[in-house]
């Protein structure tokens, strides 16, 4: 922060969700790498919150970044509704806001009469990809369960919908759908309970990889690792090994490292020319043992 006040260089604030989550950590690293290459073009402040649920803290961060004189805020909102007013205020203060990762709620945006461009992947599509890959290994009527993310997050809901789309298309039977609140230990507990209750379960679709890890441990403990297929999401480093071993069937890569970069580039673009904002979709890829 010592090289400050070169008004020519805009400050771009990257406000992420929980840096306790590897996904955002990767995002941050990607952004920092990009910044290193383009150090002359902008200053970067990357911040995140303690845990995914701490919406108030993230609002504080947005406000602080405005106070800090950021020219643009690239935000991965922890809550798709509650962050809108804060972002609107930032925009009113002349800050460019780019939404990445977790899309703002349309209705709220409409109510606030703002439009914030979204740069990010289609989570529903990603989840459907993973689900379809899984479906290839299932028969119609097979029992499956979904481990959802936190119920108030947009991407959590999208992933759940994507899984459901694929499972319905394949004719699988979703016997249980419970939230693991994105956490490994919580998911482990929930999965254990589901395994006890549903003895014929064939597959578990987890809305992120942390929960998939918890699910893997639970199936191992129950002695069912061979019988149950597990699907994750996010492609964190910890699952690479498991993908190779077959402990996890597949996961989805949304290119976290690129996500922030797309957002930052978009922000720079908008700062340069005050163009009408449009959404921009980033790629999602299915990762399996073969693609590694």
């Amino acid at each position: 922060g010592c090289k400050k006040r070169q008004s020519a260089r805009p400050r771009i604030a990257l406000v992420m969700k929980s840096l306790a989550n590897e996904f955002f950590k990767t995002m941050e690293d990607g952004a920092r790498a990009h910044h290193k290459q383009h150090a002359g073009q902008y200053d970067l402040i990357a911040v995140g919150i303690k845990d995914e649920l701490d919406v108030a803290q993230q609002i504080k961060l947005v406000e602080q970044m405005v106070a800090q004189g950021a020219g643009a805020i690239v935000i991965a909102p922890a809550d798709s509704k509650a962050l809108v007013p804060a972002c609107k205020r930032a925009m009113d203060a002349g800050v460019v806001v780019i939404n990445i990762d977790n899309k703002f709620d349309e209705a709220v945006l409409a109510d606030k009469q703002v439009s914030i461009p979204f740069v990010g992947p289609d989570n529903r599509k990603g989840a459907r990809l993973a689900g379809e890959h899984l479906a290839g290994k299932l028969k119609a009527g097979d029992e499956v369960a979904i481990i959802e993310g936190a119920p108030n997050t947009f991407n959590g809901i999208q992933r759940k919908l994507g899984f459901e789309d694929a499972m319905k298309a394949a004719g699988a039977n979703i016997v249980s759908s419970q939230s693991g609140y994105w956490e490994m230990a919580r998911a482990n507990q929930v999965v254990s309970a589901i395994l006890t209750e549903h003895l014929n379960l064939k597959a578990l679709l987890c809305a992120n990889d942390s929960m998939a890890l918890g699910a893997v441990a639970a199936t191992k403990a129950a002695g069912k690792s061979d019988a149950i297929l597990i699907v994750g999401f996010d492609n964190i480093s910890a699952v690479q090994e498991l993908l190779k071993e077959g402990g996890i069937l597949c996961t989805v890569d949304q290119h976290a490292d690129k996500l922030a970069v797309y957002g930052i580039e978009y922000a720079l673009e908008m700062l340069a020319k005050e163009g009408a904002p449009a959404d921009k979709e980033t790629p999602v890829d299915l990762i399996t043992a073969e693609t590694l």
Partner: protein
Amino acid sequence: MATTENERRATSIERRRLPSMPAFVADYLGMALALAVLLVIFGLAAGNFFTLTNFRTIANQVSDTTIVAVGMTFVLIIAGIDLSVGSVMALAGAVLGTCMVRFGLPLPIAIAACLAAGIVCGLANGLVVTRWRLPPFIVTLGMLEIARGAAHLVTDSQTKYIGSAVGVIAGRGLLIPFIVAVIIVILGQLVLSRTVFGRYIVAVGTNEEAVRLSGIDPRPIKLGVFVLCGFLTAIAAVISTARMEAADPNAGAGLELRAIAAVVIGGTSLMGGRGSVVSSFFGVLIIAVLEAGLSQMGVGEPTKRVITGCVIIAAVILDQYRHRIRKTPKP
């Protein structure tokens, strides 16, 4: 001789009353100094720290924690603790949001319902604590779970977006939340040090048995403190909901520990009997400035946590020395 005696005593009392002002100042001087040091450090280290917007931002951000910390100060003084404030804040906010969004009730009625929710939670805490003489720690731990669950049930686990219908309270640019918080701090300090209720609170925290043996029932006093804490938490919920224009069932997670940390940094004893509302306010400010400064400097979250933890411990160590210097040394 009696007259000279009395005169002497009268003057000595006068003398006492006057130098109490510096003592009063000394009480807060340490905290103010710590705050000033932080401000200077961040002023030098982070660009744009010394700006009006930044202070305005911090001021509005601390308002809900401040109000909760006032309630927590009272609870700690009676040697209690309230771990449920975070959940109760979420529940009260959830009630507010649901009243407005789902039932379309007008703001004043929704606020009344929100405050009622806070009071009911405080009442439940207080009744269980006093009726069965249970440790507040465990009772409010139970309430932490109950209120959080209730908040999710009320909102169906969905953030309720309310919009400017409630946002008006936060009155942009006017610092209304901060002003409300400051007024509550001042009122709280007056209640504590100048009213019969306040003195009874200190008395109950110091020696509950002695209070009971003096023919004063400590239970209504304790009950009152828990209700007050619930009520203030609900006010904090109104303010935070207004600031976000949305009610989030996950709001206030971890708020209890943050509020307790702030209150203790302010020098209030966890053993009860000793505390000051104004000092708690300083405690809140110190933590808030620290967090704001660190995030503006772009310090990573893990490092931030390590620093915050160290500052909490350092603050209570300093407080310890402050007390030792003021009292005669008792090892």
